[in-house]
């Protein structure tokens, strides 16, 4: 029997706000342990939370980006469970009235096909501190001799995005996560770095016979800390479940951890051991009334989303998947590209320059393209010069380097230094004659049938003309002369 996977993703994204979710402590990654703490985020007796408006607005923007509904009313709830790095022994989260409901994430795969995954909700909560368990061998709390606690991260705003089970493969799961990442980076709400823990995700995986509409029993996969491990973990879990189900076995509902080294998932806890979180509305926080005019304003300020950009690049400029993805992945680069195209630089040419020569210069000089002295309008001008055959591509490369080093407008450079390509047959013919006269042996070889020396001769014409001769014309004239 053929099986298909049914996958839903839950991911936690640390928001990039100035201060923590419920206190004025700075929201910064790392730092000396327990240096970014106060009575509120340490949950000292008597301290009270006050919600961070910036974080609430960021979640609303994230919701709007995916077309989610932003309810007029939302609230915070307490999720109660004991853990040493959770100072209050409850987490302030959102249970039944999240800030954003529904929405659709559109994403693409490596072959360029686009997919959709519905979102269930996006809600706001707070992060825990960090535990370092010592003496247990495997870094886990069981059997550890002692634990070190760092509360710098406690209270950092955390946005949780929950998807519907619309994903059908590991590749789609990664495509979905990449779409979230791109969107959040573009919105500026998070750094979305899995290695720093600013993006963490769990996957709910089940399988069913192809064609079936029912859902199988799911396992929740945790501990995946890169897109690659998400891919591998899901592949491995699908294979495991098929191996259980195919001979007639049953998948247990449980939480499984991904083991990067072993390349497999292992059982962490079963459904029976699941917590009863005793959610209830947090009486320390007043309900959130979301101002409709604020939502309307945020919606109107929403820029082009990555998927829209991707499709535009593909459809309007015919860019390949790789080039379109590369541009979209760096919003500033995409904006640079858009400005260049807007100023008249042809799409494919602009992409070639931006991702080719300019990106290489950027790497070499450690200066982002969008901060370089090559304004997108200047690049468009350069492309115009190439397309009108005013200069050839060799000159264009040289010019670009000079522009990068502060040379200014390419048109001015071309005019000032007389670099325009010449297609005047009389002028080019002079160069051709000179070259023919200077290389009698090569000419003889050509006449004897070694036509592959033509490239050399054209090159000599270009050299003689200091790059200005139209190479196609030079080739034609040479062929006539030697024919």
């Amino acid at each position, binding site marked *: 029997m053929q099986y298909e996977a049914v996958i839903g993703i839950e991911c936690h994204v640390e928001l990039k706000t100035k201060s923590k979710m419920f206190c004025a402590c700075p929201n910064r990654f790392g730092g000396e342990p327990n240096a970014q703490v106060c009575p509120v985020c340490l949950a000292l007796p008597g301290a*009270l939370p*006050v919600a961070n408006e910036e974080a609430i607005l960021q979640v609303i923007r994230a919701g709007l980006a995916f077309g989610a509904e932003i309810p007029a009313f939302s609230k915070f709830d307490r999720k*109660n469970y*004991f853990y040493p790095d959770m100072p209050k022994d409850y987490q302030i989260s959102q249970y039944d009235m999240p800030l954003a409901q529904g929405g659709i994430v559109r994403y693409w795969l490596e072959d360029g096909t686009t997919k959709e995954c519905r979102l269930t909700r996006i809600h706001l909560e707070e992060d825990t501190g960090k535990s370092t368990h010592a003496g247990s061998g495997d870094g886990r709390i069981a059997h550890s001799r002692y634990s070190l606690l760092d509360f710098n991260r406690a209270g950092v705003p955390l946005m949780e995005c929950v998807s519907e089970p619309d994903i059908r493969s590991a590749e789609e799961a990664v495509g979905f996560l990449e779409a979230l990442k791109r969107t959040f980076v573009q919105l500026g709400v998070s750094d979305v770095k899995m290695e720093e823990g600013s993006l963490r995700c769990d996957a709910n995986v089940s399988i069913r016979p192809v064609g079936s509409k029912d859902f199988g029993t799911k396992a929740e996969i945790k501990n995946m800390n890169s897109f690659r491990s998400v891919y591998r973990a899901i592949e491995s879990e699908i294979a495991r479940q098929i191996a259980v189900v195919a001979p007639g076995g049953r998948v247990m509902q449980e939480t499984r951890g991904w083991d990067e080294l072993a390349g497999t998932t292992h059982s962490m806890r079963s459904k029976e051991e699941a917590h009863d979180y005793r959610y*209830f509305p947090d*009486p320390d*926080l007043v309900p959130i009334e979301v101002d409709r005019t604020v939502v309307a304003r945020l919606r109107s300020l929403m820029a082009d989303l990555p998927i829209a950009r991707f499709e535009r690049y593909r459809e309007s400029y015919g860019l390949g998947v790789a080039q379109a993805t590369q541009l979209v992945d760096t919003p500033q680069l995409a904006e640079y590209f858009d400005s260049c195209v807007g100023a008249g630089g042809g799409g494919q040419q602009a992409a070639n320059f931006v991702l080719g020569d300019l990106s290489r210069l950027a790497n070499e000089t450690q200066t982002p393209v969008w901060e370089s002295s090559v304004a997108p309008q200047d690049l468009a001008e350069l492309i115009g010069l190439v397309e009108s055959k005013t200069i050839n591509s060799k000159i264009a490369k040289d010019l670009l380097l000079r522009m990068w080093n502060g040379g200014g407008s390419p048109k001015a450079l071309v005019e000032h230094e007389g670099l325009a390509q010449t297609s005047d047959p009389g002028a080019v013919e002079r160069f051709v004659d000179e070259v023919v006269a200077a290389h009698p042996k090569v000419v003889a070889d050509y006449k004897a049938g070694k036509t592959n020396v033509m490239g050399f001769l054209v090159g000599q014409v270009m050299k003689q003309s200091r790059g200005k001769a139209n190479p196609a014309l030079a080739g034609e004239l040479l062929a006539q002369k030697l024919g």
Partner: protein
Amino acid sequence: MSETMELSAAEIARRVNAGDISAREVTDAALAQIDAVDGRLGAYLTRLHDLARVSAGRVDARIKAGEHLPLAGVPVAVKDNMCLAGTRTTCGSKMLEGWVAPYTATAVARLLDAGAIPVGKANMDEFAMGSSCENSALGKTRNPYDLGRVPGGSSGGSAAAVAAYEAAIGMGSDTGGSIREPAAFCNLVGFKPTYGRVSRYGLIAFASSLDQIGPLARSVEDAALAYDVMAGKDPMDSTSVDRPVEPAATALRSDLRGVRVGIVKEFGTQRLGPEIDSLYRRAYLDLERLGATLVDVELPTAEYGLATYYLIAPAECSSNLARFDGVRYGLRVDGEDVGQMYERTRAEGFGPEVKRRILIGTYALSSGYYDAYYVKAQKARTKFGADFKRAFERCDLIASPAASSPAFAFHAKSDPYSMYMMDYYTIPMSLAGLPALSVPCGYVLPEGSSRPMPMGLQLAAPLFGEVQLLAAANAYECATQHARQQRPEGAL
């Protein structure tokens, strides 16, 4: 006892501001009184001699520099569930026996900034759970009117301190009656403002949606003075209300003309026995004599007050008290692993009443019971608000007993339910968030005792009706002068 300690807070502030007496002299008198009587009384868990003298020095300097401070030099007893930087803040619990607060509660800070002198941290029922102070794990507080009786609770230490002239103002917190009941037991005015009027920042939470800080004082005027200083929006407490605070101390009245006072049908006093019944009938007649019109009002939800309260308050406390886990501060009892450490710490750190409420609350919030208990209780709570709203269409204030009996003897209420019943009259107002106070209304002779024990009249007003409430209480107090008819001999 120095005569200074018999002065009202208002008079102390007037004299200190006028330069007739220094804050330092008042403070020394208060500390002397504490040293003289508190060994017998046990109002304070921590005496703050050094801090008090330093604070007094600062106040004197400010007065000298020309400042006018509304509570200049007024000695204040701070309930030990309010943080005061650098002082031990125990909540009456072994859990926090050695914990020194690194920050100061907003309400305390406002009082101190207005010139008040913190002379001690007052005893209380553990985590404010109780009505007699007997649930304190750290000390026994006696009623200054009869040392064989309880001072009430949970703000019993603050009440005893003010009644025994060990402070002029007591800071209390009231969740279901914890200011009003001890005020009634100790012949004081005890005032719980509207929920949200006074910041809870730095008040160690029992039940967040009900907790409210307020003053205990020997007169309505003093209570009003303290309230005026502590009330107002605090950016550190999102449940504090952003609404202008009209000063109450300057709006006190001497009559009740035009005031309609509601008497709640369901709060009938016959069941409290003939002596208490006639005491309250007399009190209501006194209100009428002052110009008030008495009207009968109904509170059909009244009998569900205790049940509602004892679901919501424990539910919130089960979560609020989770943080006392031995990890970061307070008591830690080590175990084989972190789970056992939690269990041992909480088993040793919390007393039986606290554990009972954590269990009730955990149960009420559990999956499968949440709708039947917590959600239903919230619905009932909404109903309380609606019922009061309807009642206040027919009256301006509601009058009732503050407690079901006078102060009782130690160990007299051994089963929890009879203790809970003490708050029968105060809980409905707490559920509705209303401002309410207790004002002395006479004495009764408890069975087998020759010492008359004070009783309190509860007056409640619509939300944010503090000024009208205090004005009316002042009229009643001035006309009756009940508090002056007995002295707290036990502590003098």
